[in-house]
């Protein structure tokens, strides 16, 4: 019979200890975690960034990623978007009883790989098991801390008129890859999620300029939503050019089929940077030199008029307002 996670695995007793030792500590080995004290204790100095994120993606495995890698990258990227170098993460599981041990191992393995690539350590964790039906297979929460280098001041409210808007690559792959695996919607596509830790990309960018004004990763709600957030927070308008936004033909095709707009589709390995015009060229060059920024492009600029608005010049030369995502993007009927 296949091994499954049981309610007793979350009880704090022997089975629970076994699970922690065998499944987690071994795979994620590092001295801080191995102590198994109530808290991870470490020294840090400087300006810190601290963030948390819960992950409830369904299905838990999809082309190009899984919930484990997502839980690491999500928090790493949130730290990186503050300009911080991500260092330590916590990892908490809420497991629905009956989850296959093999599936859990696969996810822990992918967490291990992701932490290695992102150069972060899991230093503390928690496991709960809930009754069947109380969770959807597996939920993961991660929190993380990182250090912000001196002289770096990145915030959503720092965009200034004249700044350039740079996008690190093609949009929409993550959302479409996940949708393609949803029950009842399975369609075949070569697309994989763009899921990636962006710490190294941000480090490369900061190496050439400490004047980056805003960084944000266009996750849920897509590019359109985060541009609106930035325009609102900074009280500026953002003008973007549709033709400059890189989108793969497969994403366009899937979006057409489903009646969705790539601008609103989630990404997990992309970022938007708003930088002073003077620094734009060198930041763009640094981005293109990193694996995760190869197809980076300047997609627009910041203006003073119509604060809070995002306006796009369409490929026909006309212009329209881009609003935030409302509700869930739903496939159309006809």
């Amino acid at each position: 019979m296949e091994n499954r996670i049981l309610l007793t695995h979350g009880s704090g007793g022997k089975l629970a200890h076994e699970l922690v030792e065998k499944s987690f500590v071994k795979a994620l080995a590092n001295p801080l975690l191995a102590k198994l004290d109530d808290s991870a204790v470490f020294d840090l100095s400087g300006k810190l960034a601290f963030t948390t994120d819960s992950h409830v993606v369904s299905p838990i495995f999809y082309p190009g990623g899984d919930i484990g890698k997502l839980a690491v990258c999500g928090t790493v990227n949130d730290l990186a978007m503050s300009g911080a170098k991500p260092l330590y993460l916590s990892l908490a599981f809420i497991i629905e009883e009956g989850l296959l041990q093999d599936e859990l191992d696969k996810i822990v393995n992918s967490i291990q790989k992701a932490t290695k690539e992102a150069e972060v350590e899991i230093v503390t964790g928690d496991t709960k098991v809930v009754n069947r039906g109380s969770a959807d297979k597996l939920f993961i929460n991660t929190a993380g801390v990182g250090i912000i280098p001196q002289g770096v001041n990145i915030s959503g409210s720092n965009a200034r008129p004249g700044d350039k808007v740079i996008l690190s690559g093609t949009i929409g792959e993550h959302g479409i890859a996940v949708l393609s695996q949803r029950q009842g919607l399975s369609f075949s596509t070569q697309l994989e999620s763009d899921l990636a830790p962006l710490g190294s990309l941000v480090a490369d960018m900061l190496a050439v300029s400490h004047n980056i004004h805003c960084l944000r990763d266009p996750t849920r709600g897509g590019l359109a939503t985060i541009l609106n957030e930035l325009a609102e927070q900074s009280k500026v308008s953002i003008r973007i050019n549709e033709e400059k936004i890189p989108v793969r033909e497969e994403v366009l095709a899937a979006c057409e089929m489903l009646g969705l707009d790539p601008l609103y589709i989630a990404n997990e390995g992309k970022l938007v940077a708003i930088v002073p015009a003077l620094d734009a060229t060198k930041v763009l060059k640094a981005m293109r030199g990193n694996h995760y920024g190869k197809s980076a492009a300047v997609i627009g600029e910041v203006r003073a008029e119509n604060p809070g608005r995002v306006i796009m010049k369409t490929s026909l030369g006309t212009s329209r307002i881009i609003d935030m995502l409302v509700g869930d993007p739903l496939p159309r009927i006809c």
Partner: protein
Amino acid sequence: MRFITEFRRPELAEGLISQIHHKSKTAVRLMEFCGGHTVTIFRYGIRQALPKTLEMVSGPGCPVCVTANADLDKAIALSQIPDVIITTFGDMLKVPGSYSSLQEAKASGADVRVVYSTMDALKIAEENPDKSVVFLGIGFETTAPTIAASILMAQDKGIQNYHVLSLHKLCPPAIRAILDCGEVRLQGLICPGHVSVIIGSHPWESVARDYNIPCVISGFEPLDILQCISMLVAQVEKGESRVEIAYRRGVHPEGNREALKIMEQVFEPCPAQWRGMGEIPGSGLKLRGKYRHFDAELVFSIVPEPACEPEGCICGDILRGVKTPTDCLLFGKVCTPEHPVGPCMVSSEGSCSAYYLYGGSFGE
């Protein structure tokens, strides 16, 4: 061939736009019937690019929007019956009926599941033999054949617990109703693309002839729409009224014969209630007698409270093309995509949602 970027090429669009400007002399009003067309027109700011002689109005071609409150109330009432699983396309979830929405019913414990195809609904029926599964048959000629197919398959497999609430609508009778009532004077029709993939171009012939109006079937990319407008303008200027297809890669004059055959086999036309337009004869589809045991309305006796419309909502007028969303006092204030009052704000193909999301024109 690339089927998307190829139909969005800016240099070709520019050519078509200048062609339209060059040809258009007479002031005319054109209606795009289909909500999908409305979305393309707004997404690409096509209205801004057209000459002043052309006025575009949006039609009732959004299946969610035209579903009458009384019919929505029926669906919600069905969801309240114990051991009934409602399966529906996602768009329907948020649409407010007279008193509640399916989303609210779901949150209060009703078993409402979003599916992406009728076959998924059928599968749910197979997996839950002790429950009744009702599929909400909302849509035009585009979705009706897939629902007919699911009924035939249920029949084949002997699945007894699958039922359909057939609220299907047919497009040509609705267009005739709009032209008959004469509230909006139209000089050209952008005929629906996906619907015509199924029904072909022939059903539009009599519309063009009877009402002396140019009819051109369009696809959903910006170049399709511009090509279609250009063809309509050409007909207008020559005083012609013919049916043309600007969507050859999808539409065959005969339509999809297989699809039409199963639709005909399972359904027969019936009168249907349209939001804003009332009852239109022959504009709905009901299950033929042979398949009555699949008909949710006959199997379950539901008597919902009398339907009522939200105060101040002018979705009905908007669907007839008589008013635009900005004429509505609720638009953008009380009624937003987050808190929709009327269905045109809910559906991704609804006019109000397109106006709200894409902001109408926003010239440089």
